[in-house]
């Protein structure tokens, strides 16, 4: 681990949209106990939370490491640094059966290529399934995280192509066609997950209202409502009053830049 640089005043206010997104997602984890960690942005956000607002957060890596204390930010979720010094390393059978489907995961973190207003997620294909325009990675563990994790946090950048009226493929169920249907189906089928609870983007923070639809609750400093509307495929519900997300603190920025992503792979 390198030594902290001194923070100069100019750096405090200068932060990227990606940094704001990661910081906002990390803060949502305050008070949570067990978080299921996937690859990419969730990986940074969760590790930032552990170093700031959620010091007792237990990380369950999709690869099977539990109680990991990574000495560096792993590129992949299957890095040797998440194993050395973990409290437990388990097979994927055990991870998916007992930890995830068994209901021990408080928060599952998902990214996505497309999301709709009800938090349903596509990470499989753009276009037709049989003849895709773009073949995406597919579910991995996402579909079972969406069903079994007690709550789901989504972290993704907004654009007209990603925040769409109708997703091309439903990989991971959100609030389905709305809150009422979702609650009924989840109850009747014995799902332990209550579905998506927050979507953090590069422009703001959404929670879900009583209808099960995304509602913009907080807008990031520097972002505008016009930008929000330009990057979303439906007319977004807005909270009244709409909050402004507190800017990243110097300490949050320092941790991201010096410790978690020194090469700027995720935050440029």
């Amino acid at each position, binding site marked *: 681990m390198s030594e902290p640089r001194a923070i100069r005043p100019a750096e405090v206010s200068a932060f990227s949209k990606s940094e704001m997104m990661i910081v906002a997602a990390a803060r949502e984890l305050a008070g949570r106990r067990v978080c299921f960690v996937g*690859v*990419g942005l969730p990986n940074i956000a969760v590790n930032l939370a552990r170093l700031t607002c959620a010091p007792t957060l237990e990380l369950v890596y*999709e*690869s*099977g*490491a539990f109680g990991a204390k990574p000495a560096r930010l*792993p*590129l*992949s*979720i*299957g*890095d*040797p640094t998440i*194993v*050395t*010094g973990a409290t437990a*390393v*388990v*097979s*994927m*059978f055990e991870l*998916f*059966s007992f930890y*995830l*489907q068994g209901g021990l995961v408080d928060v599952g973190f998902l990214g996505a290529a497309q999301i709709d207003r009800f938090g349903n997620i596509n990470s*499989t294909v753009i276009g037709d*399934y049989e003849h*895709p*325009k*773009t*073949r*995406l*990675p*597919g*579910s*991995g*563990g*996402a*579909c*079972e995280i969406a*069903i*079994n994790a007690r709550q789901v946090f989504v972290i993704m950048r907004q654009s007209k192509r990603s925040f769409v009226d109708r997703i091309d*493929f*439903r*990989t*991971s*169920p959100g609030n*389905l066609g709305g809150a009422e249907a979702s609650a009924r*189906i989840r109850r*009747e*089928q*014995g*799902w332990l997950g209550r579905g998506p609870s927050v979507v953090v983007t590069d422009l703001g923070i959404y929670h879900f209202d009583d209808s099960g639809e995304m509602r913009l609750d907080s807008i990031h400093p520097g972002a505008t409502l016009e930008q929000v509307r330009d990057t979303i495929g439906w007319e977004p519900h807005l909270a009244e009053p709409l909050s402004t997300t507190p800017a990243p603190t110097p300490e949050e920025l320092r941790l991201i830049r010096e410790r978690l992503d020194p090469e700027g*792979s995720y935050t440029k």
Partner: protein
Amino acid sequence: MSKVTSMRDAVAALVHDGDVVAIEGFTHLICFAAGHEIIRQRKRELTLARLTPDLIYDQMVAAGTARKLVFSWLGNPGVGGLHAIRRRVEDADPAPLELEEYSHFGMVGRYTAGASNLPFFPLRSYFETDLPKANPLIRPIRSPFGEETVYAVPPLKPDVTVVHAQRADAEGNTQMWGLLGCQKEAAFAAERVIVVVEDLVDESVIRADPNRTVIPGLIVNAVVVEPFGAHPSYVQGAYDRDNHFYRDWDAIAREAGTTQAWLDEWVYGVSGRAEYMAKLGAERVASLKPSGEAPSGSVDYGVYK
């Protein structure tokens, strides 16, 4: 009875054209050495099963060994897509590639059913998703207790499963530590098993810690000793993941030409893993060594006479 053999002989004897092949390992212990030997021996029409096809199957698909993938997550973790596979899926370039798609737990369940001789494995995934429409082998099943329905996936029984591990004895009793993925299930599900290890050890080393054994020699057909055989994947305690190569592959695989040139140089152009390592160079190999030791400590089983 010793099952120790060379990678060349193991692949020649145990992998046949048209086989269902699983080279498993969730980021950890992915046996690239076996994949490269399968490419060199120009095996064809394989069905390749893996949760995460990773670079190894991108390479094997680019080399024309495969007609079909069975998988759950198709990407280069933390980097991006698998371009050789995408070319075949999106553009049928140079030929179509059949996909059979599950989720991670679905794949783990398929191996588990295969290993357990069960006709299906039940799980709570897939509800209210488009996956059962995309794959008709994901089917609902009603619980005989109460009203609940869950989904079921069918058994997956590879013709050959390849497992990389830290160590085994000559009979194939295999021990590994670090991330275990679903190698155990994939091995028990398979008709034939090839174990590839960093170290061949005496039976007494295995017997000293029987709880550490993941795969029994009983189900192993061949033991191949191939140090560094998992590179650019890694082996806990032995060498690090070569993240630079994972990043480099993104550029290499973007064009068919550069992909083939890489295969020519690094797969067809070498006779086996020893030559590959020599080509990689001592400095690169040394840079992947862990920065220190983290010993597990020893426990006592006790002598009972």
